[in-house]
Each structure stands twice: as structure tokens, then as C-alpha cells.
């Protein structure tokens, strides 16, 4: 079986359209980031309290808990800025996500206080054995440190990649690949900002994974470009690179498809803990595939074209 035989799609000719689309999406993300004053960091980076509690009625006739009632109870206890959200639980479980800042300092045990309030106010919905599903309290100092570490990690990953591609290909390839990676990461962060989703430690891990995946994709195309440039010495850069993209298109689509479906399975069935992580990967797989076809390779064409203008065309030179 095969989806398509030999294709001759003019990707390179349409590159300006692709650049425009990318630009619009990136700009939308940047606007959202500016309006919201940067990404919405999770407590991993800001410090704070996050917990997931199960409030399924335990006594006969008990009602589901109203979110506003929880908010009021917390305000009465001096916890004023809580962000409360109901999340979907299996088998009719009522699960509630509560995020708040640390009131006082870590010694004042904000998370324990929240639990005490819930236990006291909603005794009909509290089974002590299953109440706490997740309880996280992170001090501000840890958050600051992690932020620094995360930025360093992204820096080192990108540097390692540029160096490796520089060594294996040439610098142009490396820079084009890294430009595509920035493109992917920016779009993913932008989409997270547009949807109001938190950037947590695991999302940073997802971003780095996207970097790895997108690069994987890009390199398969580049590898073909390197090969074809040697093979078709008379052809202009644009058409050689377009040819390479078409040759690898089948592989690009199939691998993206299998990866997309597994990540989709993780997103749908993988449970609440991994949900946002899987979402970031989903976005990453789509954007990463797109960028290796429409961003990385066309950027090289742009670069080579400029070089041609300076040095005369490739065909004439040979």
C-alpha cells in the first residue's frame, strides 16, 4: 500500500505563503505573550500550591460541591486568590484542582490549611483515604532556580545541536535547523499562552522533546538535500531542495502520522497528569513536521539564492 507515489509539489515556490502563515501564528502568540506579560508559569517556576482533590459525595444524599462554595470557604480561611477548577474524573468522580499562592511562608503550610478547610466545610464529600490525589507546595526559591536551570537546558540543547549539524553538514544547515526549532518552540509557547495553559517543568521537557523530534524530521530532509546537491550539480538550489523534500515526503508523513497517533492516544487515554504534556507534544509533532518542510529547507534556499546573486548562479559557476 502507499498513500502517494512520486510527488512533484512545489513547496519551495510557495515558501512565501508558508512564511506568512508561520509569521501570523508566531505573531498571534507573541501578542498574547505581551498582553499576558510573558508565559503563564506553573508553580514549578513561580512557587505556590497546587492540589487535586477528590470530592465525590461519600454520604448518601450528599450533593456535588459547588466551586463557589469552595472559594468562599477558602477566602474565609484567609486564602484569597485561589484558582479553582473542576476536572473530569473517571466513573463520575468529582475532582477539583486548586491552585493558590503560598500564604505567609512555607512554615504556615498553606496546602495543609486548604485541606483542613475542605475537610471541615465539606465533610459529606471527603473520604480521607482518597481525598488527596495530588498535593504540591513549592517554595519561591526552588522555582527561581528551576527557571534558571530550564533556560540553561534549552541553551545547551540548542548549542549541542548546532555544533553537531555543523560538523555533519555545514553551518548553513545548522542555522536553518535551529531557526526552525525556534519557530516550533515559539509557536508551542504561543499556543499555550493563547489557551491560558501553564508552562510547567514537564512542558519544558516536552519543548525539548519537540526540539529533538522536529530536528529528527529536518535532518532526514537535509540528509537528502546533501545527497541530491552532489547528485544534481547542474540544477539550481531551489529545484534540488524541492526535489529532496518531495522524495522524503512519504517518510515524513508516515513517521509524523504514527508519532501523532501515539501521542494522541497518550493525550486521550493517558490521564490527567500527562494531559498538558501530551498536548504540547501533539502541537510539536504537527508544527515540527510543518517546519521541516516549509521552514527549514526553504530558509536554506533563501540563503543559497542570496549567495548565488553574489557569486553568480550555481549552473554558471560549474
Amino acid at each position: 500500500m502507499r498513500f502517494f507515489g512520486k510527488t512533484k509539489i512545489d513547496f519551495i515556490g510557495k515558501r512565501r505563503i508558508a512564511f506568512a502563515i508561520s509569521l501570523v501564528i508566531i505573531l498571534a502568540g507573541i501578542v498574547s505573550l505581551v498582553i499576558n506579560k510573558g508565559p503563564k508559569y506553573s508553580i514549578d517556576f513561580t512557587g505556590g500550591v497546587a492540589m487535586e482533590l477528590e470530592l465525590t459525595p461519600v454520604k448518601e444524599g450528599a450533593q456535588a460541591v459547588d466551586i463557589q462554595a469552595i472559594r468562599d470557604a477558602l477566602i474565609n480561611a484567609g486564602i484569597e486568590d485561589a484558582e479553582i477548577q473542576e476536572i473530569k474524573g473517571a466513573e463520575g468522580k468529582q475532582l477539583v484542582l486548586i491552585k493558590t499562592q503560598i500564604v505567609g511562608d512555607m512554615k504556615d503550610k498553606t496546602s495543609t490549611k486548604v485541606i483542613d478547610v475542605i475537610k471541615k466545610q465539606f465533610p459529606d464529600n471527603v473520604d480521607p483515604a482518597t481525598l488527596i490525589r495530588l498535593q504540591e507546595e513549592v517554595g519561591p526559591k526552588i522555582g527561581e532556580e528551576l527557571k534558571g536551570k530550564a533556560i540553561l537546558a534549552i541553551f545547551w540543547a540548542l548549542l549541542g545541536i548546532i555544533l553537531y549539524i555543523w560538523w555533519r553538514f555545514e553551518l548553513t544547515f545548522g542555522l536553518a535547523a535551529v531557526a526552525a526549532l525556534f519557530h516550533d518552540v515559539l509557536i508551542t509557547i504561543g499556543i499555550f499562552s493563547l489557551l491560558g495553559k501553564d508552562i510547567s517543568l514537564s512542558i519544558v521537557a516536552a519543548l525539548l522533546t519537540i526540539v529533538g523530534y522536529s530536528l529528527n524530521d529536518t535532518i532526514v530532509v537535509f540528509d537528502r538535500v546533501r545527497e541530491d546537491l552532489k547528485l544534481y550539480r547542474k540544477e539550481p538550489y531551489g529545484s534540488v531542495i524541492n526535489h529532496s523534500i518531495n522524495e522524503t515526503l512519504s517518510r515524513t508523513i508516515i513517521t509524523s502520522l504514527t508519532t501523532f497517533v501515539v501521542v494522541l492516544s497518550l493525550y486521550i487515554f493517558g490521564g490527567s497528569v500527562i494531559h498538558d504534556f501530551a498536548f504540547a507534544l501533539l502541537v510539536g509533532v504537527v508544527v515540527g513536521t510543518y517546519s521541516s518542510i516549509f521552514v527549514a529547507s526553504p530558509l536554506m534556499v533563501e540563503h543559497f539564492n542570496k549567495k548565488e546573486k553574489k557569486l553568480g548562479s550555481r549552473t554558471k559557476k560549474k
Partner: protein
Amino acid sequence: MRNRKMRGLIILVVLLVTAYYFLPLVVPNLPSFWTTKRLKLGLDLQGGSQIQLEVDFTNSELSVKEREDAIKTAYEIIRNRIDQFGVAEPLIQRVANTNRIIIQLPGLKDPSRAKDLIGKTAMLEFKFVASSEQMQETYETMDKFLQENIEKYEFLEEFSDINETDEVVDVLGTEEEMDDESYNNAMIFTDLTTSETGMPLQIDYKHLAKLKSLLKDPLFLQNIPTGLQIALGKDNKHDPYSARDIYILHKSAEITGKSLDNAITKIGQGYTAKDKGPYIMLEFKKTGAKKFKNITGQNIGERLAVILDNIVFIAPTIESRIPDGQARITGNFTIEECHDLVIVLNAGSLPAPVNIIEERTVGPTLGSDSIKAGILAALIGMAFVILFMMIYYGLSGLFADIAVIVNVTFIIAVMTMLEGTLTMPGIAGMILTIGMAVDANVIIFERIREYLEAGKTIRSAVDSGFRRALVTILDANITTLITALVLYQFGTGPIKGFAVTLSIGIVGSMFASIVLVKAIFDGFVTNTAKDKLSI
């Protein structure tokens, strides 16, 4: 031919080792030597708490060497406390080159007890309660101080309004008439520390945080009359929202925890509230007992407060000399509370306070939900990939499927061999690898198809396909490996788990698709598919 034999041998060894470590997971009742190494589940999957502590040297004058010793002592004491607390397989680690300690407590349902236990400095002190004149003086001083400095303490504004102080009870029962001038002064501290029921020296729960911030404020502390201190009474676990007592104490300790020999939990059998329920029996060392005898003998009628970590537990009046070096701490204890206090008293006090700077707890229900969800997601993803490859590439796709299955078992086997910890992100890494594992084979198969279309023979198309794809696969995977290694370097627990499974998965998939699938192809092409290849 020799190369082929070599390759066959390598494949055989890898498969055998994989099977050896994978089997215990699926076959029950294997002999015990076989199951010594097992795959541990991370806290996020089995439930439990991770607590990160920092030994706090901000107010200490210890030298670098003394600090190092203090961290070691703190580590030992905390380990001791957790041992006695009774959690299965706790993990207590110093974070290298820092003053931090990470504690993992698997399967713990209620982390708040453990937190209390760990965070206690366990500084036991006996101090005298101040005389009523000294209390009066303290109250007047603090009222005056707050009145004059109210702009620094905005959170006390509600008490600075004179109209609301109508109902003020003369706190300490002195019968002086208030003159006009003092009436014009709001008695902020007095109001703050009088409960709604009118009890002096008691603070309502809703105002507790305000008093706590006052007691942390250096300027406020400076203004307390010399030699005295203000301390809070113990909370009541049976009624956590009730008003708390306040004590004015002499600052210097008469006896400290250093004189303590042993502490035990006892249950009172009496009928009055005081004699009923659990209490703690303290036994002093010889020197401590002698000191205790003298102090109690010389101060009959005075109140002696028992203080642990700056909280007053009880402050009984000394009725007679206590000769046997034994003291009882009573007071609204729950059994758990008593049990935990005894642990910290016996394990000794920490050389410096420790602060909890991070805490993450996963309940058992979320953990088991995550495992179920992870396995379901993995199975569905894997089923899709396997079916897809079979349909799209026919028999060759089936070979690639063998590679996928080998790769997944390989990851689990290597994790078991390294006695690694499987976390939820680790499962995610594994699932991602399933998707990416076929990539190498897709690259190879697409190449072979191209060469077949170009008119090459099956034999040479397969050989060149694998050879040419090898370069691409290496380049593509090494870059992913670079990011995985960076992730490992930077990550904490769960992210490390993700990086590990991803790395093992990349190596495994390269082995499976380049070596294993090639071997199957070689055998297959030479024997059966000389004329037609299903790809």
C-alpha cells in the same frame, strides 16, 4: 560470513538478556535469584511524598566546617526520625554541595504528619512564666509601641479604631481606672490578644496570622521588655480553629532538651480532662534530674512552661519539689501527636532549623489511575502502529513490528537491569518511542521502494536501502539523543525518568531496526523472497 555469525551472536545475546530481565514482569513465581532486580515505580505512580528540606543558616554564626557538620547531623537525625516513624523503603538523600536534603516516602497517605515530624527542630526548653507585673508591663509597652508605629503594621488597622474598643476588658484584672489619656490610646496589642469570648491572653484563630507576623518582626521583638518573650500556646488537634493561648515568658531557659534522657508515650486513665488520654513522660539524665529537683524546690507556686520549638505545650504551677527527674506533658493530645513528639524528642534536636522548601505528594488513587491510563494509552498507540505498519508495508511491516515489540521490551528490561524507576513521564517517553521507533524502518523501507522502482534487484535494493538509510538514521537519532542527555542533566526525578526511557528507546530502536530487521531481511531474501518482496 564471519560477520554474519558475529551479528547473529550479538542479536542472540541482546534478546536473551532482554528476555531475562523482562520475564519476571509477566511470569509469576520465578525462582527468587531471578527476581532480585526489579523495576521500581516512581512516587507519581505508586503514590507517596517527596519533601525537600533546607537547613537554615540565615541566623547562625557557624563556620563553613560547622555548617557541614550541622548538615550531616541534621541528615542523621531526620533519618532517625523517619526510621522510627515507620515508612517502608524511605529514601533520604543529601543534595550534593548544597544544604538540602531530599526525602522520599513511598505509599504515605497523609504527608502532614511526616512533615510535622521532619520540620521540628525539637528544641525542648523549660522556662518560667513571667509575673503578673511583668505581664502588665509587657502589655502596656506593646500597646504603646504599636500605637506609635501603627503605620508600619497596616494589617492591625482594624484594632486602631477607638470606637471598637468599647468592650475591652481590663486584661489582667488590674482595677485602676482608665484616665482619659489612656482611653484615647487604642490598646492594639491587648485587643489583638483577647479572644471574642473576652478571655485575655488568648487569640482567635482568625487573627493568628497577624500575631505570627508580629512575632517574626525584628522591630516588634526589640521592643519587648528585656528578658521577656512572647510565645504561643499549642494548637488543639481536636479543634484546630479554637482560640490559642499566649504566654509571656522569661527568655532564659532553666533546663533544655540536652538534659533529657528519654521520652515515652503514656495513656492517662483518670476521669478529669487533665488525667485522661495520652500524655508524654519525660525522664531526665542524672544531672538534669538534680537541676530539676532544685528548680522545682525553690520555685513552688511559680508556673513553669514546657516549650518545644517555641510553642508552649503546658505551663503548670509547681506544687511541690519533683525529686525523681520525671515530668509529664499533658494537654489535648491525640495519640498520633504524642507518638510523633516522642520520636522527635528521642531523636534529639536539630543543630539548626530546617525549612521545607518543596513538597509533592501523589495520592494512591491518582497513582493507580496514572498506571492504568498509561498502559491503556501505550497499548492503543502500539496497536495502531503495528496494524498500520502491517497494512502499509505488508510482510516487511511485520518485520518492523517485531522491532517495535523488541524495542519496548528492551526498554523495560534495561530499566530493570539498571534498577531504574518508572515514572509517568517515563511511560510517556516509552510511548513516544513506539511512534519514533518505526521511523528508522520507514526511512529504510522508503529507500528500498525507491531502489526497487529504479529497477534494482531485490537483493541489491535491500542492501543499498539499509546502507544508505544508516547515515540518515544515525544523524537523526544522535541529535535526539543530545536533547535527551541535556534533559537528563537538567531534570529532576520524573523528567530524568523521561530522558532515560527516551535514550534507551533511541538506542534500542536503532539496534532493532538496523541490526535485527536487517538480519531478518537477509535471511528472508536469501531463502524466500528472491523474486518478490512484500514492502
